[in-house]
């Protein structure tokens, strides 16, 4: 808050509320909005943490996560603005406009427009080329391409297109229902995904096809039967999902195929294959590779069933060894299914890459099973003893199969994985081809580093919360006050008692952060993550246990601070591979995050700290928080109470303090114009009061002649001190209270101070704010006194801001008992620093007084 703001204490307008009841009602409303504001503010920080977590890419997530997190975040930020507006109607209206603007920027990346639609429901394979990839999926587009451009033999057939799929999904809002189930699923364990997968697949299978789609499929089948001239035609149905080629991903075995399907089963098989978009492995795979659900339209290829003599898979080169160029032909008896699903031992034929092609090696296996076509579907059969040991391919067949694979590789310029069948008439028919995946399978996540303490040397501290991941080493540097900042060495480990936002600037220079207190949602933790600096917060005794200058290794994930440099840990802490980087889902989150996470409004004191400069949700939240606290606070300072509303406090004898009950601050009805301290139910007020009365005030300090003269001089030079306005400066001390809230304003002669506190069992809502200004001595002494008080407050975890002789201090986000202790400290300081400005002369006296006060305060804690 700026000095300009605080000046209003001294000359601000007074809102004279005639009616204490009205004042109470207004306060109660504001107080409630303020609490809701703080809740929303916390949600924003939690959600931003979720986004940062996602961007680290170490855990797979889908578009559902991106949408949910962005929607929740929008809601929370909107509430932040709304509740601030309720605290100061219209004053920050600019924020609504900024909010709309930012939200509009986020929306397209999170909710992209409708996928392209239109096109025929059916395409015949002989019409298909690579230009149809958006209609038939890459698998069928490739098949059409090699048939129509390269002349490779494939079975006759047709594709049920993406347009057919879209119409199916639009029928009865099927897709909408699927999305809803996804969004609302509570996925905690694998079992939950299993239930979700199964419920969605059942839903799809039991939903009716649009009439025009069903008719188109059956008509295409009739046409195929006529051209094959087989009355009892059966087809193989294979998935060909859109987006399979979006990432460098294999998609192997993602979706279902149905072999040997008759006309009666056509529609059911189609629905089953479409449903396999939501099979367990397909959901998991898309998640892991960051593929968006909505990009995956299921196209289905229907091709005449080849009752193969033998079949298999050919790799146009060794997928595991780039130096091995031989073509690998894997073959089994019957349908290639036996090879694809690994259900039997298979023959391997290695064929030379260069012409004239020759067999380099044969590995003939004992092949005990084969798949064959039945009336409907396929079955597994025993292979006769005679055939089992026999090569299932003649050399000429093996060479032919290899040549086809090499031709396709040359055509696409990429190593290929080709599934083929040997028809009874000896032709090699290609059923599927795709680029060969030559990378090893990625691990699902980074290996957890769990340090075995003994191996990594001495443990100095253990515990706390991982606020930002990683491991780093450096010399310990404890920062207590602003002056320490200047000397902070680059690469040191920043150790602080309280994770105050003001230390954020140090994180660019620090190697790691250790704080005794703080939370994941705190600003400092946010910045640590932004800068990629490991941070451990909530690590008790860090300041006393870590001696300055000592070399330590901070392992945030392991919640440990080790003695010295632990090279092994430092080496292991390489950033885990970001599996999702570059994927469509990741990119969507990345784009959204650009309008969410960056924080440009760093300094509330800067002239640029304005609503109109908010560029991100983070900016809006930061700005609103600053203003909400100020608006809440102002309420206590802007109201001049009618005497009737205030009751004089009695603590043994009547005190020079008056109390205004705003809500539920009294434990019983209080009649008359006095309230006894026993009748006070306000938790924070009682703590403050305890501190104020812990040690009797010894009265004004002895005034040095110079001090007294300085007061006299100020009294003549300062117009505010003229007799006419003396009344303004009469002793007036007000408490405004509710059960969990206190606001104290007091004026002692020439100086003015305010304390405000909100204390309950909800730690995230707790805060104490303190302002202190003025005095009667000359400026120099007032400044000295303000520094003296600031120094004391810093000692007790307050964040302090000094502007000449005015001081503001804050403490927030701490649990109840801690807040209560600090209120006692503040109470003590309020009383015992009165008129201290006059005694601010020699250093020895100041030091002596400081020691005495610290002794007093320790008794209070």
């Amino acid at each position: 808050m700026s000095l300009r703001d605080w000046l209003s204490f001294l000359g601000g307008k007074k809102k004279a509320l005639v009616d204490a009841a009205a004042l109470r009602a207004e306060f109660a409303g504001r107080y409630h909005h303020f609490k809701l504001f703080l809740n929303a503010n916390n949600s924003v920080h939690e959600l931003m943490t979720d986004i940062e977590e996602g961007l680290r890419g170490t855990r797979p997530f889908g578009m559902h996560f991106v949408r949910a997190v962005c929607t929740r975040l929008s809601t929370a930020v909107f509430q932040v603005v709304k509740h601030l507006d309720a605290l100061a109607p219209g004053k920050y209206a600019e924020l609504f406009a900024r909010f709309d603007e930012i939200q509009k920027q986020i929306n397209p990346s999170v909710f992209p427009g409708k996928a392209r639609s239109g096109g025929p429901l059916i395409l015949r394979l002989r019409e298909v080329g690579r230009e149809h990839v958006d209609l038939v999926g890459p698998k069928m587009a490739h098949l059409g391409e090699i048939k129509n451009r390269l002349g490779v033999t494939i079975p006759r057939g047709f594709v049920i297109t993406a347009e057919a799929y879209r119409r199916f999904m639009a029928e009865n809002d099927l897709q909408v229902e699927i999305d809803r189930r996804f969004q609302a699923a509570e996925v905690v364990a694998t079992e939950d995904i299993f239930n979700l997968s199964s419920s969605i697949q059942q839903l799809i299978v039991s939903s009716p096809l649009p009439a025009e789609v069903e008719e188109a499929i059956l008509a295409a089948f009739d046409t195929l039967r006529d051209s094959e001239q087989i009355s009892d035609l059966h087809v193989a149905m294979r998935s060909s999902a859109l987006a399979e080629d979006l990432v460098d991903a294999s998609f192997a075995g993602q979706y279902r195929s149905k072999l040997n399907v008759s006309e009666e089963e056509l529609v059911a098989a189609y629905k089953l294959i479409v449903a396999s978009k939501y099979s367990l492995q397909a959901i998991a795979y898309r998640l892991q590779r960051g593929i968006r659900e909505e990009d995956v339209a299921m196209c289905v290829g229907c091709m005449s069933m080849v009752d193969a003599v033998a079949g298999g898979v050919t790799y146009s080169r060794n997928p595991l060894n780039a130096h091995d160029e031989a073509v690998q032909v894997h073959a089994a008896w019957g349908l290639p299914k036996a090879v694809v699903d690994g259900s039997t031992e298979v023959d391997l034929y290695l064929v030379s890459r260069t012409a004239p092609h020759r067999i380099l090696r044969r590995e003939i296996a004992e092949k005990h099973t084969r798949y064959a076509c039945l009336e409907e579907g396929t079955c597994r059969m025993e292979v006769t003893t005679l055939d089992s040991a026999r090569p299932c391919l003649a050399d000429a067949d093996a060479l032919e199969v290899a040549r086809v694979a090499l031709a396709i590789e040359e055509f696409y310029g990429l190593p290929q994985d080709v599934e083929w069948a040997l028809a009874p008439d000896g032709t090699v028919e290609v059923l599927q081809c795709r680029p060969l995946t030559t990378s090893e399978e990625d691990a699902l996540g980074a290996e957890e580093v769990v340090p075995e303490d003994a191996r990594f040397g001495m443990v100095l501290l253990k515990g706390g919360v991982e606020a930002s991941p990683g491991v780093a080493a450096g010399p310990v540097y404890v920062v207590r006050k602003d002056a320490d900042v200047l000397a902070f060495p680059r690469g040191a480990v920043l150790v602080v008692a309280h994770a105050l936002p003001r230390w954020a600037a140090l994180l660019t220079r620090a190697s790691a952060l250790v704080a005794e207190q703080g939370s994941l949602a705190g600003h400092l933790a946010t910045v640590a993550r932004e800068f990629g600096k490991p941070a451990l917060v909530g690590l008790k005794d860090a300041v006393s246990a870590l001696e300055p200058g000592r070399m330590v290794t901070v392992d945030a994930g392991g919640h440990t601070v080790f003695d010295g440099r632990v090279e092994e840990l430092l080496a292991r802490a390489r950033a885990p591979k970001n599996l999702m980087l570059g994927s469509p889902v990741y990119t969507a989150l990345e784009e959204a995050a650009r309008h969410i996470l960056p924080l440009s409004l760093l300094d509330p004191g800067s002239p640029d700290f304005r609503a109109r400069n908010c560029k991100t949700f983070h900016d809006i939240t930061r700005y609103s928080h600053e203003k909400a606290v100020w608006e809440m606070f102002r309420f206590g300072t802007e109201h001049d109470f009618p005497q009737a509303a205030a009751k004089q406090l009695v603590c043994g004898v009547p005190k020079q303090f008056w109390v205004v009950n705003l809500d539920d601050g009294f434990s019983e009805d209080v009649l008359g114009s006095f309230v006894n301290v026993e009748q006070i139910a306000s938790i924070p007020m009682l703590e403050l009061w305890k501190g104020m009365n812990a040690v009797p005030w010894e009265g004004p300090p002895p005034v040095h002649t110079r001090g007294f003269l300085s007061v006299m001089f100020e009294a003549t030079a300062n117009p505010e001190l003229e007799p006419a306005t003396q009344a303004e400066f009469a002793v007036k001390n007000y408490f405004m209270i509710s059960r969990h809230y206190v606001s104290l304003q007091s004026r002692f002669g020439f100086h003015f101070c305010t304390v405000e506190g909100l204390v309950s069992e909800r730690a995230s809502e707790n805060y104490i704010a303190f302002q202190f200004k003025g005095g009667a001595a000359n400026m120099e002494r007032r400044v000295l006194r303000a520094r003296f008080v600031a120094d004391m407050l810093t000692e007790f975890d307050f964040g302090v801001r000094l502007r000449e002789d005015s001081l503001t201090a804050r403490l927030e986000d701490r649990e109840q008992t801690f807040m209560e202790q600090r209120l006692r400290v503040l109470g003590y300081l309020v009383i015992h620093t009165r008129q201290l400005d006059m005694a601010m002369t020699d250093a020895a006296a100041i030091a002596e007084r400081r020691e005495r006060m610290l002794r007093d305060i320790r008794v209070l804690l």
Partner: protein
Amino acid sequence: MSLRVLLVDDEAEFLETLCKRLARRDVEAFTADSGQAALDFLASGEVDVVVLDVKMPGMDGIETLKRIKALRPEQEVIMLTGHASMEAAIQGMQLGAFDYIMKPTDISQLLYKIEDARKKHGLKAGAGRRDGGGGR
């Protein structure tokens, strides 16, 4: 005084579960399976808070919210939805919804929101003040 809540959702199963769970926490929950049913209920009965599903066949949640607010401007409404939509969320908030929560939601979270909404409603209506002695 126990909380009175109206749950509006077209999913019978969801309504039933939520009702049971809220009852265990001393909340008197009423149900409506459509926007129209909710409006009919509110025409005669009063509740502290309405919990409203966004996506319903026929009259959707946003439309229902508009009509509830037209009928009772002070009625606090919490939107609950299985569909993430930034625009619907903000539209709901701008129409005066107290909050917009996405399923799955933690029952305590929901209850906490309901309490906050009721408190706000009470403040606006000038009720719900525990007067510890105003000295009159």
